[in-house]
């Protein structure tokens, strides 16, 4: 199974990340200075959430928890990260309670706010300190007992959620990127006679002068494969990792039926492409200015902004219409993580 061994090691990984000290940030867009910090893209999370309900997805299942470690800091004008080393011990206990969970980046600001109706998430730009006082009126909404929440600066930190590839749980954004393409490779471990394959199989193209591989297509799952004479196969067009694996096996079966002694070794996902829509327009020129080290925006060449995220190593194509394409990931979680890292940055452009 693709699922279970992967999940074991991932859970360990998540536990480590979980226990790392992670910063809780609260930044307001007008203070542009903090956006120029080297870790800017991952740290900044301006809180102009006009629509609190959309942020707290109900399917969290009461995961949120606030740390009791925060010193009382006035939240109203936080230029930079606050409470650098606030550990979320309480959240560890919380973790066991959650079935559904999702891994998060330690640098991400996870605003898991109580899903209560008047959660008091009136953390708009420049709001007065008074507004933070009613951040957690609905503490009882959770399974966890909320510790002393007198300090108004407690921003609940993310819960670590274990990955369930089938049912991804969106964090702050409520938007899940859809996988559009998965590229994988496999090794059939025997030399292939491309001419014979092109002759005996219906669904093939072979033009040795143009390209030294047979292009084969199958209908279910709808994919295309490149078969090389060395026995290596590249399978593209699948919509999920499992589909890609199934398709690669089908190609191997086709070649096997043609009389070659194939095996199926080293199946590896090389690239995954996802896309989604944030549904609001984005000022690309300002994004390019504020995130110079990562962005490349050349309207004369390409209408979108190319954002090269470092952690995870994913390239995002961001367009003015709000559509985002994520590529370069080797795992589904990397795509989700990259989008969750990006969404707060994009949200800061919502009201421009």
């Amino acid at each position, binding site marked *: *199974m*693709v699922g279970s061994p992967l999940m074991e090691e991932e859970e360990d990984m998540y536990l480590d990340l979980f226990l790392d000290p992670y910063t809780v940030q609260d930044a307001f867009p007008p203070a542009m200075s903090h956006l120029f910090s080297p870790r800017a893209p991952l740290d900044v999370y301006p809180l102009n959430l*006009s629509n609190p309900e959309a942020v707290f997805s109900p399917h969290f299942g009461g995961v949120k928890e606030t740390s009791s470690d925060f010193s009382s800091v006035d939240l109203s004008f936080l230029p930079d990260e606050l409470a650098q080393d606030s550990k979320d011990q309480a959240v560890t206990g919380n973790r066991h309670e959650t079935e559904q969970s999702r891994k998060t980046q330690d640098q991400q600001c996870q605003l898991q706010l109580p899903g209560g109706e008047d959660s008091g998430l009136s953390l708009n730009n420049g709001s007065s300190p008074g507004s933070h006082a009613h951040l957690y009126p609905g503490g009882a909404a959770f399974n966890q007992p909320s510790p002393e929440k007198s300090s108004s600066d407690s921003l609940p930190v993310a819960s670590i959620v274990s990955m369930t590839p*089938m*049912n991804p749980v969106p964090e702050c954004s409520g938007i899940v990127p*859809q996988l559009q393409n998965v590229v994988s490779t496999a090794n059939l471990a025997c030399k292939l006679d491309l001419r014979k394959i092109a*002759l*005996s*199989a*219906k*669904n093939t193209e072979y033009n040795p002068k143009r390209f030294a591989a047979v292009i*084969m297509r*199958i209908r*279910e*799952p709808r994919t295309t494969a490149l078969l090389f004479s060395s026995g290596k196969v590249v399978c593209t067009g699948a*919509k*999920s*990792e*499992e*589909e*890609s*694996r*199934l398709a690669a*096996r*089908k190609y191997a*079966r*086709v070649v096997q*039926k*043609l009389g070659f002694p194939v095996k199926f070794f080293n199946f590896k996902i090389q690239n995954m492409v996802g896309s989604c829509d944030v549904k609001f*327009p984005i*000022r*690309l*020129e300002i994004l*390019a*200015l504020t995130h*110079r*080290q990562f962005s*490349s*925006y*050349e*309207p*004369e*060449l*390409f*209408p*979108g902004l190319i954002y090269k995220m470092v952690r995870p190593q994913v390239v995002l194509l961001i*367009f*003015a*219409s*709000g559509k985002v394409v994520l590529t370069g990931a080797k795992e589904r979680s990397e795509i989700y993580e990259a989008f969750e890292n990006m969404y707060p940055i994009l949200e800061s452009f*919502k*009201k421009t």
Partner: protein
Amino acid sequence: MPSGSRCPDCGSSELVEDSHYSQSQLVCSDCGCVVTEGTLTTTFNDEGNLREVTYSRSTGENEQVSRSQQRDLRRVRDLCRILKLPTTFEDTAISYYQRAYQLSGIRAARLQKKEVLVGCCVLITCRQHNWPLTMGAICTLLYADLDVFSGTYMQLVKLLGLDVPALCLADLVKSYCSSFRLFQASPSIPAKYVEDKDKMLSRTLLLVELANETWLVTGRHPLPVITAATFLAWQSLRPSARLTCSLAQFCKLANVDLPYPAASRLQELLAVLLRMASQLAWLRVLKLDKRTVVKHIADLLQHRHMLVRMAFRDGTAEGETQKQQQGEQGQREEAEDSTFDVLERKRPASPAPLLPPCMLKPPKRSHPTPSVSAVTGDENISDSEIEQYLRTPQEVRDFQRAQAASQAAKSVPNPP
């Protein structure tokens, strides 16, 4: 006389410095042989005879620098001179080229890429000094493809780790507008089309700013927007005479290429102006359309900030009070005060969302969310499914025969 230099013909050491029409020469006084002279002798010889030689042509530099690099460095200088760039730019561009040449990926690249690299270095230098130079301009100068240029440019920026600022729109407007040949009367340009440069520039700048604010510039090539804005500015400065002139005619008159997207940018800009006009009471009465709104561009630009806020909503409440508007308009148009008060009662047109045009168009096709298929990747693959992709032996024979026949037909020339 420098010792050791002798006339190559007769061997005498009697060499005289002479200058022939300001070209200094070294001449043998015995046989009259010209020992060194600008183009008649080689640099190597000149240096041997201790004549001064420019550094860039001297043989000393050539030892470290390969011939193709020398040629390309000369090209960089020439390009800078053609574009009339300040001399500091030249040095910066040369240094970028030299740095790029150190990288193995560039050094081993094809000649085409190296030629384009020359343009890339100049472009980066210009961008860093906020000198408005478009990629299209460089590509036409180099006779290069934009795709090749873009690939090389992105690679260069990545490899050298450069921070290239964005193209400065205001400067681009100024330099582009100045290239329009409409500021002086000439036989090809009727007097009613001639326009004052400063007025046109300032109005074009305002229109481009307006386009930027209303999402017409983000993600698009900047030049067509500027063309459309220049055209509107020119028309609005004397609408009675110029409304009949179309965008294509305008560009032809001005001796400027018309970029293809400029027409649609023009329509978008006019749509924005019409929306703004619907917020002004005295214009609402006139029931403007895309042609007549041009006459009122001056008014619209004067109040553009407020009108944009009123005409478009972006989530903020539409509670823009009319008081501001009343106050301003009262100052300006006393004559229309009476009608104004009456019309004030009517609600202005409901605000449209301020979105980029791509978001305003209806989606071409609905995007069905793909159902989560429960594929595990390890299912059984039935034989029949695989067999559908294979040819039977009979089919293979037929296919081979058909292939052979088509090959034969191809080799035989077509009968006339």
